[in-house]
């Protein structure tokens, strides 16, 4: 029976002729579009996660604060919920950091008679408290403390990145839904054509006592092959595209390994579902 099922699955592929290629090509194109969209979403999301991980609040102090006030500020800041670490950056340390980060401008600061950077506290937040709303709240509270000149958290950039990331993910999933319907439709029609072309065989199999599953499985295999082939070729094409862009941009684009099996699985499942419904419709 195994031989029969495999032979029929291949026979069905031969019966489909041009439509088999159309099904595979459409699956490939649509899954590739989804894969590319998902890759961009993951890229933006990755940047967002990294930025969020490095988020900190810079609390700039007014000049010449007495040590007691600095200490009481330190204590007040550490008392806020979700604070991981509060570290004082002296003016000398600030200068050192500036020179390290911007060596090309290191001569610029020598024109000042005094160090032009204020003292500051660098406040690090615990991972689970890095919510933009919470950070905004802490910034507001710290700003109201005496002796504070300015508080900077850079959350606007993170917020914007978060919004962009959500938009991309939404687009990807809308695309996923659209392509799922489109691939389903094409494979569904192909299998329908094959079943209609092989109605004579199906009628005879039914007559001689073949079970429904024996009759159906070759067509399910066939539809699944279209989806699988489309998914596999889209995964390979996406991999090549990322390598190509990395070479062209001279930038090592991250490779999200999860995407490739996901594309293959999506293709395979879509092919299976489409052929299942096609068979159910033609031969209820």
């Amino acid at each position, binding site marked *: 029976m195994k031989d029969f099922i495999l032979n029929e699955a291949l026979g069905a592929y031969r019966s489909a002729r041009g439509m088999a290629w159309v099904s595979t090509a459409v699956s490939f194109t649509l899954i590739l579009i989804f894969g590319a969209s998902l890759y961009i979403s993951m890229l933006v999301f990755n940047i967002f996660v990294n930025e969020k991980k490095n988020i900190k609040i810079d609390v700039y102090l007014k000049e010449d604060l007495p040590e007691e006030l600095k200490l009481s500020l330190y204590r007040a800041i550490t008392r806020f919920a979700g604070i991981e670490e509060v570290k004082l950056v002296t003016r000398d340390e600030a200068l050192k950091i500036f020179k390290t980060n911007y060596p090309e401008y290191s001569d610029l600061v020598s024109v000042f008679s005094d160090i032009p950077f204020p003292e500051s506290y660098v406040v690090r937040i615990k991972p689970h408290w890095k919510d933009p709303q919470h950070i905004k709240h802490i910034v507001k509270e710290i700003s109201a403390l005496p002796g504070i000149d300015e508080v900077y958290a850079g959350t606007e950039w993170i917020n914007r990145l978060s919004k962009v990331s959500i938009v991309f993910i939404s687009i990807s999933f809308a695309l996923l839904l659209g392509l799922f319907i489109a691939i389903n439709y094409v494979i569904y029609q192909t299998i329908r054509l094959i079943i209609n072309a092989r109605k004579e065989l199906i009628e005879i199999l039914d*007559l001689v*006592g073949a079970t429904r599953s024996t009759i159906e499985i070759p067509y399910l295999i066939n539809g699944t092959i279209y989806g699988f082939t489309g998914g596999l070729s889209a995964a390979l094409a996406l991999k090549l595209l990322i390598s190509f862009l990395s070479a062209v941009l001279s930038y090592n684009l991250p490779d999200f390994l999860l995407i490739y099996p996901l594309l293959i699985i999506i293709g395979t499942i879509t092919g299976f579902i489409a052929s299942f419904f096609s068979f159910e419709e033609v031969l209820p």
Partner: protein
Amino acid sequence: MSYINFKNVSKTYRDRWYALQDVSFSIDKGEFVFVIGPTGAGKTTLLSHIYFKEFPTFGTVEVLGYSTDTVKKKEIPFLRRKIGVIFQDFKLLSDRNVLKNVSIALEVTGTPGGEAERRARAILTELGMGDKLYKMPNELSGGEGQKVAIARALVREPFILLADEPTGNIDPESSEEILKILKRVNDRGTTVIVATHNYGFLEKVVRKRVLALQAGRLVKDERFYIK
């Protein structure tokens, strides 16, 4: 022992037109039954009820222990494995040779490929088709095509053989040969039911039963047995 029971069977299409009307009879093991009647009398519909292709609108059909009242869809293939069916148009697969056309009936029900081919070869040889195993259906005459269809129906050694106008598409000489084959099958104990409007056929079978249909009604049920 009763293989087939029709109990007050009626079949209507579009709720108006009666293909069968209140038909009741039973057929025992080893009978040779002719179902006769003009075109449209309900012969094919009656045969279709025996292999559960059609279900009655009213009444019950019981075949080899399966009843149309209680049978589940998934059980029907198992009933059909016990029944061989042949048609006027042979219903052969044009893309496979004679041997494959017969062995497929075994392969799809779980017989390994080698064993299926061995049994298909044996039955085809018995029916005089041993030298045409690798011919394609379009290379066969009408009589040969029907022999292949009979081989496919018999290869699983069914309890019942249904023949719907088996000689409708073949020449008189081949028709005689087909009838001889059906008689031989019946002599081995298989119940044979032949739907035909070729009344000349009836005279060639001595031990027979005739069911006559007219406009879906069973108008005659006669047995011709030599004691």
